[in-house]
């Protein structure tokens, strides 16, 4: 089973789940976190526990790949709760998922950090400095932008070899297996560690990196 952590309203996540139907891909939403069925004993690891995915209770050991398409659970998503409780419950759910995702032994794109469910919660300023440290240039805007992507050991659609080296270095600095950047021919304009797989090429690369496809 592939688990995609995303909002139920995330159309791209739904498309991705549909394209990975053969792998039993399902979306784990915030609603799943307030349904009975989660049991996580941190001392034993997540694999021995149960979780709720798309409304069904499943064994965490059945998850072969987790893809996190959100940095946190947002209070605004918890519409069934009293407004005063939403912020606290969202923080609790996010903190829980950080520990649970960290504990999973299957491939996770991207592994969480203490402040984000998907890689580091770096500010634009932090990414800018890291890009320069990796030998690249940063621009606030640019024309002819293209979206380049690092997945594991592969880099897709980088404008040139120099920027490919920069992006590979950046993924190592951020300790992520998935990294996406908007670039022009000279510079990086923005970076994100949230997986967005809008082409078959990127979806297949993730499956290969996770060992689910040849």
């Amino acid at each position, binding site marked *: 089973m592939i688990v995609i952590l995303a909002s139920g309203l995330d159309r791209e996540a739904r498309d991705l789940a549909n394209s990975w139907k053969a792998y039993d891909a399902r979306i784990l939403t915030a609603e799943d976190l*307030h349904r009975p069925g989660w049991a*996580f004993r941190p001392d034993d690891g997540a694999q021995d526990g149960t979780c709720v995915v798309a409304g069904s209770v499943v064994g965490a050991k059945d998850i072969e790949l987790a893809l996190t398409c959100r940095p946190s659970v947002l209070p605004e998503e918890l519409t069934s709760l009293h407004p005063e409780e939403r912020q606290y419950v969202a923080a*609790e759910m996010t903190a829980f998922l950080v520990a649970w995702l960290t*504990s999973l032994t299957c491939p996770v794109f991207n592994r969480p950090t*203490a402040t984000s469910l998907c890689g580091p919660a770096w*500010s634009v*300023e932090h990414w800018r400095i890291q890009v320069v440290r990796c030998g690249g240039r940063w621009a606030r805007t640019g024309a002819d932008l293209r979206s380049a992507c690092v997945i594991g050991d592969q880099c897709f659609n980088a404008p040139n070899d120099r920027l490919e080296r920069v992006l590979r270095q950046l993924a190592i600095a951020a300790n992520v297996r998935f990294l996406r950047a908007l670039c022009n021919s000279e510079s990086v304009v923005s970076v994100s560690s949230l997986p967005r797989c809008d082409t078959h090429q990127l979806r297949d690369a993730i499956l290969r990196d996770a060992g689910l496809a040849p």
Partner: protein
Amino acid sequence: MDAVRSALRDLGREAVFLDQRRNSSMRVRLKPSRRGDVNGSISSAGEVLNLGEIGSAYIRPIETRKAMPEPDVEGKALQHAIAVDTTLIAWSDLTSAQVVNRPSAMASNHSKPYQASLIRNLGFRTPRTLITTDPAAASQFVKSHACVVYKSISGVRSVVSRLSGSDPEALQDVANCPTQFQEYIDGHEVRVHVVGRTTISTKIDSAASDYRYAHLTDASVTMEPIAIDESLSAKCVKMASAMGLHLAGIDFRVSPSGDWYCLEVNPSPGFTFYEAATGQAIGRAVAELLCELAQENCGDGTPRNGSSG
């Protein structure tokens, strides 16, 4: 913060205090280099601080909005203040100056079970824990332990409460949100402050489930300095170092049979609570650490500025 500033003054050391409440009048510029340095400057009220001159920094940031004086809490002033904080956080994580503590290192206790896994990996015992939305699993966990506490998973509303065994109905509520249950360890608490390579330890006796909030239940709290084993002290220093922390407040619960359970590592400890009760000079130790780190950080041996904020 005041305790450290005061101790730095007593040591005759120069420190610059950056007040978050004055963010709206600050300008911060960072200049990264390919060699990895992050220099730049902070200017405020006509004065300019060269970030490259900072040898060590002690930071205790709070949420920007909470730090802002009332008239500035909306609009452009707030946006500017958030941008200043964000830039300073990036600098704190990336500068070659020594920072007590770097924001990325301080983040681990935003998720208590995540931090507990780090603690276990570093060789400390932690209480048995279950996080669940399943009332039956919660009930089973409660039955299998003599006494159980529940506590928040995040750093929000971080109060520990003992579960009353006579109220099984309350366990139905866990379906609303993952809830953390932990076996209650009978005994007393010990707070070990790691300051650089040294430790300062305080024993706490209280009937309250969470001694920090003992006043809410009229429970008494007594605190006294204690000496801990050298090997345990070294292990605490090693754990703080592995978590990237120069300063940490490590909470232990010690069972009547002498087993030590690590409950939490506080990366921004409010040490004056313990200092006031025991007279232990923790603020002075932090100030000395900042001086030492500034000295180490400067290749030619010339002390650089300390900074706090």
